């Protein structure tokens, strides 16, 4: 099963869980499966129109997903990493 890695700022809904494996064949399915397990997670990644927030970036096996990231296929050993912008200034 693909693995999804949750960034520290988004671990409120996951109650501290940093990574989990889910049944999914695409990035979107992966995120939706995470939401089913941890309600409240998905709005942190997707906006009301279902697009990836501009302050979130998605990486598959270390490669930055650009374009239609949500449709990207995921296979058994793939890792999806979510990165969120955080800084003070």
């Amino acid at each position, binding site marked *: 099963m693909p693995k999804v890695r949750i960034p520290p700022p988004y671990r409120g809904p996951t109650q501290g869980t940093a990574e989990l494996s889910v049944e999914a064949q695409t990035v979107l399915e992966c995120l939706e499966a995470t939401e089913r397990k941890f309600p409240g997670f998905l709005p942190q990644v997707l906006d009301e129109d279902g697009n990836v927030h501009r302050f979130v970036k998605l990486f598959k096996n270390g490669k930055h997903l650009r374009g239609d990231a949500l449709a990207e296929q995921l296979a058994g050993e793939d890792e999806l990493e979510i*990165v969120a912008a*955080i800084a*003070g200034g």
Partner: protein
Amino acid sequence: MAGPSGDKLITVDMTRQSVEVTDFPAKWKLLGGRALSAKILLEQCNPKCDPLGPENVLVVAPGVLSGTAAPTSGRISIGGKSPLTGGIKEANSGGQPGQHLMKLGIRAIVVKGQPADANARFGLEVTAEGAKVVPADDCRGMLNYALCDKLSKKYAKTASFISCGPAGEMRLSGASVATTDQDNRFPARHAARGGLGAVMGSKGLKYVMVDPGKSGVRRTADPKAFGELCKGYTKSYQAGPQMFKHGTSSVVPVANMLHTFPYKNRTSGQSPNAQTLDGARIVESFATRGGGMHNCMTGCIVKCSNIVHDESGSYKTSALEFETLALLGASCAVATWQEVAELDRACDEIGLDTIETGAAIAVLMDAGKMPWGDSAAMAKLILEEVPKGTDRGKAIGSGAVATGKFTGHTRVPHARGQAIPAWDPRPLKATGVTYCTSPMGADHTAGLVINPGLPPDKYAYESQKSQLVNAVCDSSGFCQFLQPTLDDIRAFYGALYGEEVTRQQIADQGWACLSDEWEFNRRAGFTKADDKLSRPLVEEPIGAGPGVVFDVPDEIVQQVFTRQPMQDDLFAAKAAG
């Protein structure tokens, strides 16, 4: 293959306006910035001294890597005993003076004493020929931008400046120290927190001019190996997410989502104005107003600094940061980024910390002494009342706690007298542990842990880890927004001096820095009773549903003072502030 040599330390006696240049101790070669400042203060400053008296010591210390070709490594530390907290303080800034001082091999400027005439003003000139104190009475009371414009005309094109504004000269404990940026030599970067501008002002020191002349980058033990390291690190950074390429202000929606974008003096963690305060609107404005992203210092690959223009297309301010939008904006119920840009410029002109000033005005508004969201009244207060020295102006310029005393209002969110930055310790409890235990008081750059799902038994561990990593980062010259790890920093140190710096050594250096600072505060009179947050943060909930308060037990908070065993995650943790 020995790396940099011949480094110097400048000691300035402001009582006699004399300068002594000595060799920099070889044993301190891996000490820079914050760690060096802490070491000097612990050795040379009486922790019980009056922060605004002659016994206090002002330290100006670039990072170890400043002046080299290492990317984004020109940060500079300003240190001293804080008039705001009464403890040790290091405030860190970008801009160009850090690079310039290290190109000259100047590891620190240590300013002591005080002129007999409190109205006298002086400048300090630092060049390849040496250093000297010069009269600067003609600069008395000048706003930072006008001052730097005047200095730019007086000195060489290669020079950069460190200055304090009228707030510093008035010795107000919210006063900042400004540094000039690399392109326009505007005083747009600030070592803002803790009132070190007041310490500079108390010494009659209006500015420091640093002219590296034709000095090149610092020598390294193996230039080829160092160059390869720089190239590889830069390539790797640029292949990554570059999360700050639109500026820290792009964090607004994330903070708002996490209930840590303070509204109306932190009575809520979400602002109804988040959309109009979002840095995305600033980026959109570049198309019609001009401005854009730039690097505040040479050699920066992060380029997180925005240049903000007004409606007519003229320069207004730089950089309009997330923390400023949060404290001068959201917490005062100001509706738009354009209004906050005006207020940011006002603070930069007067030389005030935007976080402390925003928090102070939010207290004033919460006390019913100014309408919420009235940015015109705020600008008038900052630009007119502060320099005039009205009672209200002095209170605002002296910070949130002083404003609470002035108004009799008790909702003052702070730790050790320093206002809480945007990141709220109620939803972010490990960050709250940092605010309780950091030698710096409530300072997000001292150890930011943004993990609302962290279990309580990890609060102290994560806080200590972040405090240690940030202490090393702020000593290295690297910017926290580059997010270097301890392994990254020790690799650069090793290449600089041609010798291995082990994990144990780099971790020890971070812990030694924290220990020196805690020891200074202990000698200043701080006790366990001071390791707390103020009442509103422990009694008034914010957040979704019933909300949360800061309720971390003392025994967990106190665990930060016991060093945890080293684990691999310490060396992979990124600096964050």
